């Protein structure tokens, strides 16, 4: 790969990263907090590509003038054995560029959630719930209070949860949401089973907002043996896919 092609690859990756981080597409892949770093990295890549092109074109001009500056273009190689142009392995960088720009895969959903066990973690103490009716909680907060606090701190309060629906261990409907701490490779689902009247024709992966109360029932996740608490729902609203699909 010669330097001009290398410059184009750098511009492409930088551009793809910038586009993803400015458009919100990055939220399908990494946590929101990475945005400033993604923008900075994309900008540096674009600048590196621009300088490569600039030095290369300037170098080519002086080379024609009889200077030996063009020697760099060929002497660039470095004992790895890729004698002509840059590293061959750099071609592979086209794969993520195309992945980001052309195919833009969606955020992880029910398929990935079904393959991993519900990742509820215990907390050392459960503070009383803040005011609000219905009170909106994260899936993890609800599941953790339901499983490890046995619903004591939930009481009779009306709770609102947001997530997508999927089929559970005994074919009942579950509400699920993926939690991401860094990127989708570490995504873990939190699952809550739905009790009560659900809309007809519910489709896998449909996003919903449910309002309901803690019911005391539990079912076991057959992937990791973890408990999946129920919520007894009084209201289910179908909603559009939110921009930030992961809980962090």
């Amino acid at each position, binding site marked *: 790969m010669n330097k001009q092609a290398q410059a184009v690859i750098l511009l492409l990756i930088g551009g793809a990263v910038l586009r993803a981080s400015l458009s919100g597409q990055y939220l399908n892949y990494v946590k929101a907090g990475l945005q400033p770093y993604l923008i*900075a*990295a994309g900008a540096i890549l674009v600048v590196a590509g621009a300088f490569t092109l600039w030095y290369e074109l300037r170098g080519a001009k002086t080379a024609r003038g009889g200077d030996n500056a063009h020697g760099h273009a060929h002497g*660039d190689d470095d004992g790895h054995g890729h004698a002509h142009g*840059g590293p061959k392995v750099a071609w592979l960088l086209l794969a993520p560029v195309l992945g980001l720009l052309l195919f833009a895969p969606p955020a992880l959903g029910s398929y990935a959630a079904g393959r*991993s066990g519900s990742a509820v973690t215990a907390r050392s103490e459960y503070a009383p719930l803040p005011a609000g009716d219905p009170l909106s909680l994260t899936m993890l907060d609800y599941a953790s209070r339901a499983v490890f606090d046995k619903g004591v701190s939930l009481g009779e309060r009306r709770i609102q949860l947001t997530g997508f629906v999927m089929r559970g261990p005994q074919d009942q409907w579950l509400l699920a949401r993926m939690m991401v701490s860094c990127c989708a490779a*570490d995504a873990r689902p939190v699952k809550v089973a739905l009790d009560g009247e659900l809309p007809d024709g519910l489709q896998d992966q449909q996003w919903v907002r449910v309002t309901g109360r803690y019911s005391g029932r539990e079912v076991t996740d057959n992937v990791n043996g973890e408990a999946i608490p129920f919520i007894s729902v009084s209201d289910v609203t179908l909603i559009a896919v939110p921009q930030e699909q992961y809980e962090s």
Partner: protein
Amino acid sequence: MTVTEEHVPPAEAEAPPRKRWRPGSVEVLAALLVLVVLLRGPITRSLATPALQTWLTVFVSVLTQAIPFLVFGVVLSAVIAVFIPPSFFAKALPSHPALAVPTASVAGVVLPGCECASVPVAGALVQRGVTPAAAFAFLLASPAVNPIVLISTAVAFPGQPQMVVGRAVASLVVACLMGWLWQAFGKGSWLRMPSRAHLDGMAKWPAFWASVRHDVLHAGGFLVIGAASAAVIAVVVPKTWLEHVASNPVLAIVVMGLLAVLLSICSEADAFVAASLTQFSLTARLAFLVVGPMIDLKLFAMQAGIFGRRFALRFAPATFVMAILVSAILGPVLL
């Protein structure tokens, strides 16, 4: 930016010194891009199954997450290679390698990031004349013992500060042991480092950008291989079989170590995954946290790229065995 805008360069790409015209890499690149854009529909349809879709999402995610750290590491390594004189490291590190190794391990605290940044930086250190044993200790320690990773470990294991201590201590021990092991048995001929002779004759800034360009393309290309294989593992390995191995304490440690290698999760996030694998003992989860930042699929690919394949084939298995042994011994003591 759209892809179509990028097709402009071919016009100016006729490299002057060629005698006979044959397609250069810019032409190949342009043709490839046009082809993929034209075939976008069929390719998208063939990727529509949930498993492939999940693979693509995980693949793109691992790379998106790694790129800021890679760029950060590459810029830092370019600064080391171009702006910091070798004499600085001669002064900063004890001259005796046996002492330089622990000093370099502890110095890993200052590189706040994950493992993608550490490989190019360690490469630049070796080129700047730092003794390889110390550079490798830094390479192994820095992704595990820096403040960001330790804080995220504390957050993932609330009320269990011994996990943070265990991770830091075990990682430093493994890094030092591997550094000394290299000092005792390592051969310089296993290393195939890029010679940066071409940077020497250049002015500072052109050399800086040349170093950034080379390292991004090189380490980045290998990162793609690592991310693709890690995404395969994420899709193929069913989490249910973990249940069966968790009950055997010895097997559990080895399996968690292997899982850390295969999953290739960023060291800033691996503690959260370890915390969610509740069926495993704390020692087994410690092995996961010690092995992951030191050796995994994407690190192996990047190490092979920066230091050469002969090096990576020896260094990676040794690191794995050392990390497992140290975790198995220190785990019961510290946790």
